[in-house]
Structure formats: C-alpha cells, structure tokens
C-alpha cells in the first residue's frame, strides 16, 4: 500500500513537472511564430501589461484569438500549435510585460 502510494506520488510529480510552463520555451515559440509580425521579444512582450497578457490567455486564449481576428495570425491563434504552447507563451509574455520591469535576453 505504501509503495503504491509512493509510486503514485512520483508519477503525479512527474506529470506536474511536464505540465509546468517554461519561459524559455515560450520565448522560442514567440521567436518562431510571432517575431515576424511583432518584432523581437523585447518589443513583443512590451506591447501589453502583465494583467493584459494574463487576461488574453484566459478562457482558452479568447483574448489572444480576438486580437488576431482578421489578421495574418488568425490561423495560428486558432490552431493546435497555440493550444500546445499557450502556457509557455503566456509565461514568457507575462514575465516580460510592459510593466514587469524585465527585459528578455536575446538567444
């Protein structure tokens, strides 16, 4: 019983680690998908405040989708790629939002 509980805990911890958002991954996703239209990471993240970024990614990225409606980025905003990378992208954009006082490094 004890061993099974321990194994379950380890498995759960592993899942949590995998599910954790990663700023570096978010930065990579930004550079790959967003840079072309929005400029480098410093400029892109500074387009909105931290609260605005948090709100944009709430409710299945509803705000993010609304911003991109009718633009080149609409396909990406409604696609599988954003769904996959949204937690990372959100973390990156939030960390470096205009009122964060932080500036992302260049790769």
């Amino acid at each position: 019983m004890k061993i099974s509980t321990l194994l379950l805990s380890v498995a759960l911890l592993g899942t949590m680690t995998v599910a954790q958002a990663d700023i570096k991954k978010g930065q990579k996703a930004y550079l790959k998908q967003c840079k072309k239209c929005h400029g480098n990471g410093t400029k892109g993240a500074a387009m909105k405040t931290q609260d605005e970024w948090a709100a944009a990614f709430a409710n299945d990225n509803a705000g993010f989708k609304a911003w991109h409606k009718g633009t080149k980025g609409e396909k990406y905003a409604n696609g599988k790629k954003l769904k996959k990378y949204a937690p990372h992208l959100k973390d990156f954009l939030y960390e470096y939002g205009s009122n964060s006082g932080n500036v992302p490094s260049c790769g």
Partner: protein
Amino acid sequence: MKKILLLLFVTLSLSAADVNWFHSYAKASETAKTNNKPMMLFMNKPGCGACQYMKDNVFTNAQVIDYLNKNFVAVYLDIHKNDAPKDLQVNVTPVFHFLKSDGSKSIETLMGGKGVKKFLPMLQKALAASH
C-alpha cells in the same frame, strides 16, 4: 543669440552625461583594484534588441549614470571579442556580471535586462555585497 548659446550649453551638458565605460576587462580590473571599486560587466552584442533597450532606456537615466559612475567600474564588452576570463564568457545577451574589486562575483549574474526601477536596486544590492 543668448537662447542659442544656452541651448548649445544644455545640449553639450546632456551629451557629456554618460556612463564611463571601459572596453577592456584588464584595464577595468586594474582600475577596480586601485580604487577598490566593484565592477559591473555589460556583456552585449551588435543587433541585440534587449541590449539596445538597456542602452536607450536604462543607461541614459541620470540616476543610473550617476550611481554607476560614482560607485562602479562599468565595463562594456562584446561577447564575440573581449578579454574577460573564461568563466565570465556567455552566449546570450545582455548579461550583467557584478564583481567585487578582486574579480570575484558579488551577486548572481543577471541574464536579460531590467527597467530602471529594478536595475537600480540591483546595483545597490551589488554595491552592498561588494564590501
């Protein structure tokens, strides 16, 4: 005429207010030891947006300039060609190393940049940790 002279004077005064950068680690290190001042290394590269942000928004701030010039030996190094020791070399930019006058690290290295409101307290922390 007076107005023009005044404008010229103001412009010259403003352009003179700049961080006194060293562009050689060896020379900066020597100065730091002689004056018993900590060092701040700004590792950057051409075309780096975040480095440009720091140059345009932080290293133009009068408080930052004054604090750096008074308390630090400021070093401006290109990551592709510099004379800093191996353990200070980096691949990403900007990176800020905060060193004591003997060259050892005073506080944790900063990867990426900060706005004035966050950068100034970091300098204060680095200065406090250097003595």
